């Protein structure tokens, strides 16, 4: 066996160490400030889309 080849035991240990036997994740439990920040984020996204939408309309010559 080449020096850098992995034995089965080593492979299993390495996979465990790496956490590849992980469980599926559920939704994150939200605290008040997390929920608030996500709502603020929604507002931000809408505002930025509107702002850059205006820029595109300006570039396209639709508005002055």
């Amino acid at each position, binding site marked *: 066996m080449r020096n850098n080849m992995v034995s089965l035991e080593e*492979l299993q240990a390495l996979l465990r160490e790496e*956490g*590849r036997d*992980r469980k599926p994740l559920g*939704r994150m439990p939200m605290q008040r400030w997390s929920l608030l920040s996500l709502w603020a984020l929604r507002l*931000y*996204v809408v505002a*930025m889309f509107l702002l850059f939408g205006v*820029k595109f309309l300006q570039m396209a010559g639709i508005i002055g």
Partner: protein
Amino acid sequence: MAQVLTGFSSISTEDVRRAEDRLRVRRTRQNHSGWLRRLLLAWLLVGPGILVMLGDNDAGGVLTYATTGAQFGLGFFLPFLLFLMTPLAYVVQEMTVRLGAVTGRGHAELIWARFGRFWGWFSLTDLALGNLLTLVTEFIGMGTGLAFFGVPLQIGVPLSAAVVLGVAIFGRYWTAERLTLGLAGFNLVFVPVALLAHPDPIQVTKAFVSFSLPGGLTGAALFLIIANIGTTIAPWMLFFQQSAVVDKGLTEQDIPHGRLDTAIGSIVMGIIAVAIVIATGATLHPAGKNVSDLSQADFIRALVPFVGGTGARLFALGLFEAGLVAAITINLSTSWAFGEVFGWAHSLNSRIHEAPWFYLLYIVSIVIAAATVLVPGAPLELITLMVQLVATLLMPPALLFLLLLLNDRELMGKWTNGRWANCFSALIIIALLGLNASYGLTVLFPHLLPS
């Protein structure tokens, strides 16, 4: 190896190859001590941090830094980039190292799992669109760099596409990472370009201690501040480094080396950014050259009288390399993200037939981006604006998700963010939101700030 693994159908080539790399790390920890151990471990474990930072100095970034130097000279932006943006990039990217090493999952996968489909789709679509458009700008950069050496665009662009493809298809993370790191080394050519510009050392020193913005906060200055921030921290970087950390197989034990890797990368990135600003700030700015509308090719030509043919060739080489490394890293971040979300095999340790969707997406993105550059009359100006829009839109959400995930105790355990990291990250998000909102206002009301 096949014999050893007979009967273990759930263990893929990807696992075996990663395990071989991890074995070298484990044996180094067991068999060596002192400085040799530290040196060998650093050699084995660095990669994602340096790559993400040097990939971030992409073709568009080079042009942004060059424009900054040409417009504002050796002033405000030197300390801004080195003392503010470099630590900022480190703080943000260090969080992705912890998140990747602790959870073993990529950024896209975590957003999807922890925040649901709406934010999952939002992040993924934004990332994919932004990356594809950025990829187009990288091919423009690569084509322009090669064109300076007499290679026509019709040959330069497909040639660049072939190299970007070639680097990723070895079926081994280690090989792809080391090849890209080797290519990224050429980013340093901007340092000799800066030296060839013969900057006045006293003026450079003065620039580092004065934080004043010549002419005050004008619309152009605000635009360049946002552009420089957008060039230094970008959404794809979060996705790339976390996925690379996972694909490399880093664990909690490797976090100190991941931090070292990120620190080295951010310092080198800062030095190169400063070198580019000096190269144009010491030459084009004093000469009063108007560069705001120059293309990349014109930029290189404008430098010839100041840094000579050698300096200009080095700049062209740097531009080609910047586009090349960025194309590889940015494109990988898309493929990894889609693979994580849709459950495809998504490792550079997999062969093409083992991870067909992962590689197909990588290839298709390259073909589309390269072909777009070759289309006569393609709306490149619009694409550049779109890149900016998508990056601006995604950065605060991406940072917010990063911050929320880093405070997820169930996920992070003892690696949860501390108070200082939270304060610093929150400050970054607020500053970005403020700058983006200001820019938005200047879009709506162009005469709000003096021109």
